[in-house]
């Protein structure tokens, strides 16, 4: 008896020792196919476009990393064990003081940094020490555009394709730049700032088309998505988010998953006369693409104005998810997540494409998305049918989603009434989660959601429409939701439909997440901390204080020297950071569309900046 116990002990010691040694030698390199969790692989979501470590080219050519928008790097050098050794490899100052959301791109040995306003592009030579500048591109957008940018003159990044960089300028132009020389290849005006339209989104390039959508949902614009020819910059097609079917590009092949979104000219019929022309539904977020189905997926923004009393009706095709055929632009299916949205709950958040385990053991091509309205949707991306929709944040304004009809239940008591302030509405106008995308790791099968815990008081009033001026009609005061923390970092299991772990962040989370195959997840906070956590349990492994608040997109790439690098932009701004960058006077809690009240303390915690930080393990 005694002996057996001793043996067991010995074995245990040996095993742990061995494990420790192996770790130390860095032999234990988990592959995406490995089982990190006891859960059976069959019951885990898989990347839509399966890559294993070998398939990882180490580049970062588009902000979402891939068409599936996973923000997942297959690089495995960094692991929970060694990440604490990260050091700054080099930094790059853009000399700007506006919100820095755009991620650097890495192609081979060149890093392309798209700086905040006025959106200069810098090509850095990663092969040389200190990554000196190869070339600089200065687009010089019109300054007036800043006056119609609701939430800071931000830019969410460029995209690299076939030797060219494509990016949008705030003043309504899309440009193509030669990646080798930095020379402008073409420049196309797609949006009109006179109407209040701006461009802040990162384009997506697929099948030789550059996909661009407009911003300005608070300015009474009409939302659209435009496809430009990548070669010439000429317009291929444009699909509006409101108006008659011929404008929305709805044809006979339109098959909405639910009856509520079916009908003829819904983009007109679900609006008061003429209001669809100024009804919003802008496309300022993220686009995913499924090469197999040849479908692009994106969400449309809020209907305008915020005061819903001025636009009775469901307000199609705003605040919903669209699937368009990339060739013709025709809508294949549409699901309106938030019909007749009354809280500015855009639906522009990222759509992650994954292979979802089917009950019969097979795989369903799925679209999963943490939505602005606080529900985590799982769609069958062929039809748009909802497989599940569960709240991933604190919600008291909606009762839930009816999977049969697709209807979203609104709590009557929380519906704004003209002339009376409605209190404690959760989530607030930025929703449970704003633009900053989550990451999906096929390794853990989890979605890493950086999001918000904000509620609001809302008072709506009659909004006046003057082209090129705000069209909102609401006073809003935001404040921290239950718990007092304004940000939350949640790891969500889309299959088990449950939260695996969550990290409470004091400040709102405005920076996207980055997942790596090494089992480390990165994100930044608005007071400038860049954090690395364990993908499995959220344990904080490493953190670094950057110069300014982080609202930018972190990336990971393999440098010319073969090492894995992590890069993150640091520069406070955007809607959440307006308190710092727009000189808000916080004595007015309704300032910055109500965000001022939620971030009164931000000026004390960070200052403006514009810097790219690049980290790596010491050689």
């Amino acid at each position, binding site marked *: 008896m005694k002996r057996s116990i001793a043996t067991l002990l010995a074995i245990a010691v040996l095993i742990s020792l061995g494990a420790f040694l192996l770790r130390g030698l860095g032999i234990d390199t988990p592959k995406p196919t490995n089982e990190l969790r006891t859960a059976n692989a069959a019951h885990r979501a898989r990347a839509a476009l399966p890559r294993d470590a070998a398939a990882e080219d180490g580049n970062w050519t588009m902000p979402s990393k891939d068409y599936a928008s996973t923000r997942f790097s297959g690089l495995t050098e960094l692991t929970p064990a060694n990440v604490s050794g990260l050091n700054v490899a080099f930094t790059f100052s853009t000399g700007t003081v506006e919100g820095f959301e755009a991620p650097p791109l890495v192609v081979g040995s060149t890093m392309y940094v798209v700086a905040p306003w006025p959106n200069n592009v810098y090509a850095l030579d990663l092969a040389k020490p200190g990554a000196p500048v190869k070339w600089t591109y200065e687009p010089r957008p019109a300054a007036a555009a800043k006056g119609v940018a609701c939430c800071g003159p931000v830019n969410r990044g460029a995209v690299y394709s076939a030797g060219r960089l494509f990016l949008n300028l705030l003043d309504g132009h899309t440009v193509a730049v030669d990646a080798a020389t930095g020379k402008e290849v073409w420049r196309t005006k797609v949006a009109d700032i006179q109407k209040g339209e701006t461009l802040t989104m990162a384009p997506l390039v697929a099948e030789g088309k550059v996909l661009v959508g407009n911003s300005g949902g608070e300015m009474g614009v009409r939302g659209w998505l435009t496809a430009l020819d990548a070669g010439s910059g000429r317009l291929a097609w444009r699909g509006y988010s409101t108006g008659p079917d011929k404008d929305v590009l709805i044809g006979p092949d339109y098959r909405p998953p639910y009856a509520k979104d079916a009908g003829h000219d819904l983009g007109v019929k679900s609006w008061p006369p003429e209001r669809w022309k100024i009804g919003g539904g802008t496309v300022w977020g993220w686009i995913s693409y499924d090469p197999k189905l040849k479908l692009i997926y994106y969400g449309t923004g809020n209907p305008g104005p915020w005061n819903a009393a001025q636009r009775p009706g469901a307000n199609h095709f705003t605040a919903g998810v669209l699937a368009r055929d990339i060739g013709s632009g025709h809508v294949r299916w549409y699901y309106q997540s938030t019909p007749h949205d009354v809280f500015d709950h855009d639906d522009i958040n990222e759509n992650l494409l994954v292979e979802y385990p089917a009950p019969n053991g097979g795989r369903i091509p799925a679209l999963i998305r943490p939505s602005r309205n606080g529900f985590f949707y799982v769609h069958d991306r062929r039809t748009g049918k909802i497989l599940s929709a569960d709240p991933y944040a604190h919600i008291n304004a909606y009762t839930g989603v009816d999977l049969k009809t697709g209807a979203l239940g609104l709590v009557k008591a929380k519906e704004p009434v003209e*002339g*009376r*302030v409605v209190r404690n509405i959760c989530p607030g106008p930025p929703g449970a989660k704003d633009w900053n995308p989550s990451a999906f790791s096929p390794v853990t099968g989890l979605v890493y959601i950086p999001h918000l815990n904000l509620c609001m008081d809302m008072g709506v009033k009659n909004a006046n429409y003057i082209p090129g001026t705000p069209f909102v009609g609401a006073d809003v005061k935001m404040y921290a939701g239950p718990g007092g923390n304004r940000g939350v970092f949640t790891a969500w299991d889309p299959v088990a439909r449950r939260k695996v772990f969550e990290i409470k962040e004091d400040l709102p989370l405005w920076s996207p997440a980055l997942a790596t195959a090494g089992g480390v997840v990165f994100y930044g906070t608005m007071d400038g901390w860049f954090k690395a956590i364990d993908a499995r349990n959220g344990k904080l492994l490493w953190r670094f204080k950057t110069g300014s608040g982080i609202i930018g997109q972190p990336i990971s790439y393999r440098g010319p020297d073969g090492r894995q690098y992590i890069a993150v932009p640091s520069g406070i701004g955007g809607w959440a950071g307006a308190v710092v960058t727009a000189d808000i006077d916080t004595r007015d809690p309704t300032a910055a569309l109500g965000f001022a009240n939620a971030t009164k303390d931000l000026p004390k915690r960070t200052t403006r900046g514009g810097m790219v930080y690049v980290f790596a393990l010491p050689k």
Partner: protein
Amino acid sequence: MSSALEKAKAPPADVPRDGPGLSGPVLEARLARTWGRPRGLIGWLSSVDHKDIGRRYIVTALTFLALAGALALIMRLQLAKPENDLVGAARYNEIFTMHGTTMMFLFAVPVMQGVQIYLTPLMIGTRAMAFPRLTAVSFYLYLAGGCLLWVAFILNIAPDIGWFAYPPLSGPQYGVGKRPDIWAQMVTFTEVASLAAAVTLIATILKQRAPGMSLARMPLYVWTTLVTSLMVVFSMPAVALASSLLLSDRLVGTHFYNPAEGGDALLWQHLFWFFGHPEVYIIFLPATGFVSEIVATFSRRSIVFYPVVVLSVVATGILAFGLWVHHMFATGLPRVGYSFYTAASISVSIPTALQIFCWIATLWEGRPRLQVPLLYVIGFIITFVIGGLTGVMIAAVPLDLQLHDTYFIVAHFHYVLIGGAVFPLLGAITYWFPKFTGRMMSEKIGKLGFWMLFLGFQLAFFPMHVAGIYGMPRRVYTYPAGMGLEWPNLLSSLGSLVVALAVLLFVLNMVRSALGGRRAAANPWDGSSLEWATQSPPADYNFAHIPVVESRAPLWGSRDHLPVVHGLRVDDRELLLTTVMDAVPDVREPSAQPSPWPFISSVAISVMFIGSILSPWALVVGAIPATIAMAAWFWPKGPPELEPTIS
């Protein structure tokens, strides 16, 4: 202690007291010295004599009546023909606001209280009001409030929000500038003033009635005074509160009337009308008191069914608090509630109907003597009953929803307030004029004036019923031609001129008679109540000896000799307090000396109130001088003398 009791039991002999030993001219001379007031302006300002204060109240109120009447004329001229442009829209709004506000807050209530302050001590046979200095303060504050409003009018910052100043129109966003603040603060002034007056009146009536004047023997006018004063005490705080909330909304941005932040615009209407409706009866009930006295005297018999009249007055006073919602029938409150208020509003006319019966019955049983005061009473009955009946009409929700806020309402409340209060008031002034001035008013001019006023009034206000039904809303500065509104308005305008002339005539009569009218004896009309027992005008001390009352009509019961009590000090101001119910002599009480401090504190308080229109800190800063002044006012003068109870 015991020594004190000793003192109490046997008052020091050296103290001179009235009685068989001390009476006649000698007594009167000494009393005059004790009760007279110092000479000069200071003396005038420090007077605490209820007759001085009452007279000042009445004169000031009549001045405001004249001013507001002038405004009424301007309005009638503007409305004489359609699309007239005599006064602009904005100015017209100021004018009707000033007219309504002045009439309600600066004329109607104060004039009634003025007469009450003058007559009550005389009618109940005492020498002064309780708290005479507070009475003085009440007048000065009222005066200050009135001046605030009218100076503002002259300086072109007059309120332009109507006399009931509904928010949000009077609120911080839509009530532009300081105009509404001036209105609200004027309200505060007048409310404090009438509250002060009411309190002193109640105390006087309950504790200072002549021995033997039990509640059941109290003159009807004193009854109405008691009831209205109690109504003031219960209703005025509501509006004082409402106007203070409004001020704080406007000055420091609170949200009492801001629906967006959980306030409510209707809160104001409830608070205001909870005061506003009783207000009408606060004006009307004293008038019924006048009528009762005049009817009794001029039909040469005491009122038939005295208990019925008293009960009606009390009932009216109570019911008046249950009707305010009938001013809000159009605000969309629950319909069921409306029915209740309809019933209540209609039922309030029952006690009034009973009073009217009693008056007519008294005339019926008595031997009416058609002199000017009785003429006014007859005019009152003929006119007021119409107002009362239209009142019954608009108590019905379906009728009110059409007639509310139209000229029909304007006609209604002018019939009620002019017919029901001003006619009796003019009668009362004619009736008590000899007591006020020692001279009679001219009967001839009086009769002429009455007929002009009576007919002119009907001409001016009856057509307004029609205008209202023809769809003329109130408070419009003009109206389009072709709606059938031309002739009603023209007639009204003509009538208003006649009314103006009549009032002018009345005033001339007053002035002329006051200067050179026929001298009046103590009891020129052969009245039955105590004020006629002393000479006209009464001496500063009212009565040389405090009379004893043995019936409801003391002067008719035993006209040759009126029994009196003796023993009040002559060298110092002393009053006889009696028990509340039966007026059994209770204690002797010293009465306050004249003092300039009430005036000075009133000035300090006024500065504080007016300053608080401009900054909330004025309340803090202004409180200091006010406190000092009051400290001086209340400073104890030597050890209080323990007075013996009378056994």
